[in-house]
């Protein structure tokens, strides 16, 4: 079915809402009219129709129906009656059909039973085939049964005053009509409020920044990771040595590895008990500690108290071999820095030796690809 009339339908809906809820209540009636009009069109010979055309035609049918009723009522009222007659209906038909014309319209005094409009209808009845409506339509609109307000007697209350009999409906509850203003009992100190607001804002900013850094760190390592490492947990594979090299200034310089500092600063003893894995407490320890006083929380979260063993995997394809990131760890460790982290730096020197050895092996591999031995 061609739905080219979608836009116009939307306009019709807007008009409906402008007119208020009156059109919305009619939805059922309109839907039924649409179906019946469609059936009439089908009997006339149409196969399909545009939706907007059908809606327009249904609207016209409804208006015609209502106009007939209004006209018939008018004629009945004119004759001094309230109930409509067949003749009122015939007169209404003549009224509405006068624009098309029917036989005998000019004859003012003709008897209604011989009305041309009626004859047209009789002719139509004889010609057209009878098409009953497709489905059973319930009687509508269904009246809503309202629950009456219970009386004083039913509620078991006594009316407040003597002059009110108990069989009358009860008064509404006082909270429905009495409004007591609620005051804020807390004393408001503008200075402390401002301090509190600033503190919360700072906290939010810190957590956002750390989250961003964490995401960036994860993203940087994941991009250069080997396919084999993908199966592992991202935290295990979060090896800064395998990340692509960073130019100076690309990453924030405040990236200071302080696992020793973490154990020093944090009063939480759980960290020293569990040096190995990354527990939830470890992850949130910096946040806890920052919440208490404020400090560098970002970088500590990215590093674990114990560095995982660096594993180098060499293959024939060159994309896994990237000597540059080997230097990453150096810069990573050297920027910032704390004099107290001596243990960290000693471990760092071991890594340097390893890296030098790895570089040598790489060079050999580059020169002699055929004599390469898988490590």
């Amino acid at each position: 079915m061609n739905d080219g009339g979608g836009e116009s339908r939307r306009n019709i809906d807007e008009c409906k809402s402008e007119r208020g809820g009156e059109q919305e209540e009619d939805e059922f009636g309109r839907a039924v009219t649409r179906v019946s009009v469609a059936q009439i069109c089908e009997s006339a010979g149409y196969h399909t129709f545009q939706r907007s055309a059908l809606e327009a035609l249904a609207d016209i049918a409804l208006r015609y129906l209502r106009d007939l009723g209004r006209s018939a009522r008018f004629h009945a009222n004119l004759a001094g009656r309230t109930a409509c007659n067949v003749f009122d209906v015939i007169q209404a038909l003549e009224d509405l059909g006068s624009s098309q014309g029917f036989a005998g319209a000019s004859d003012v005094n003709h008897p209604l039973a011989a009305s041309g409009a009626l004859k047209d209808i009789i002719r139509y009845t004889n010609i057209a085939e009878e098409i009953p409506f497709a489905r059973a339509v319930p009687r509508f609109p269904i009246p809503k049964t309202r629950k009456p307000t219970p009386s004083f007697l039913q509620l078991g209350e006594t009316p407040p005053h003597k002059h009110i009999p108990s069989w009358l409906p009860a008064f509404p509850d006082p909270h429905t009509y009495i409004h007591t203003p609620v005051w804020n009992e807390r004393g408001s100190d503008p200075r402390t409020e401002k301090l509190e607001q600033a503190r919360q804002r700072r906290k939010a900013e810190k957590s956002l920044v750390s989250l961003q850094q964490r995401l960036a760190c994860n993203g940087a390592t994941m991009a250069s990771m080997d396919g084999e490492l993908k199966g592992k947990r991202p935290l295990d594979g979060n090896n800064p040595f395998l990340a692509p090299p960073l130019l100076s200034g690309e990453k924030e310089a405040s990236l200071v590895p302080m696992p020793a500092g973490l154990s020093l600063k944090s009063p939480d003893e759980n960290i020293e008990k569990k040096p190995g894995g990354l527990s939830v407490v470890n992850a949130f320890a910096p946040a806890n500690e920052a919440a208490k006083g404020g400090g560098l929380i970002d970088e500590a979260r990215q590093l674990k108290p114990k560095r995982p063993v660096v594993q180098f995997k060499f293959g024939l394809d060159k994309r896994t071999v990237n000597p540059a990131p080997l230097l990453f760890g150096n810069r990573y460790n050297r920027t910032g820095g704390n004099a107290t982290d001596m243990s960290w730096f000693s471990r760092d020197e071991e890594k340097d030796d390893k890296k030098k050895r790895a570089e040598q092996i790489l060079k050999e591999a580059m020169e002699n690809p055929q004599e390469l031995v898988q490590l």
Partner: protein
Amino acid sequence: MNSADPKHDDEAALIEFLSSLMDYTPTIPDELAEHYLGKSGFQCPDIRVFDCRTRLVALATQKFIAEIANDALQLCKARQSAVVKDKRDKLQKDKRLILTNDDLSKALREYGVNMKRQEYFAESPSTGMESAARDD
């Protein structure tokens, strides 16, 4: 006496028609007609029986719509036969008769209903307004 006979005939015909109407089910259902007639003040009897007045009104509406549909159908067929002169293939494809807004508005003009249709549709209400804002 002569004048009374045709009257009598007419009335007899009317009575017969009205009684036959009870057997004829118009396409517009009775409940629908009753609802909308009730809205316009057409008094229905208290006994909820579908009487011939409601049926008559429903039938009249049906006739009205059928006439409009027929006129629109004539227009549609006329247009198809005018177009088809190029290829015979089109006749096969265009056997589907579609009730379009154009045909409907032309047919309704004779009945005094002025139906206007949008020439083209924009994508959204603000199409074209954005470019004006950008110029500023």
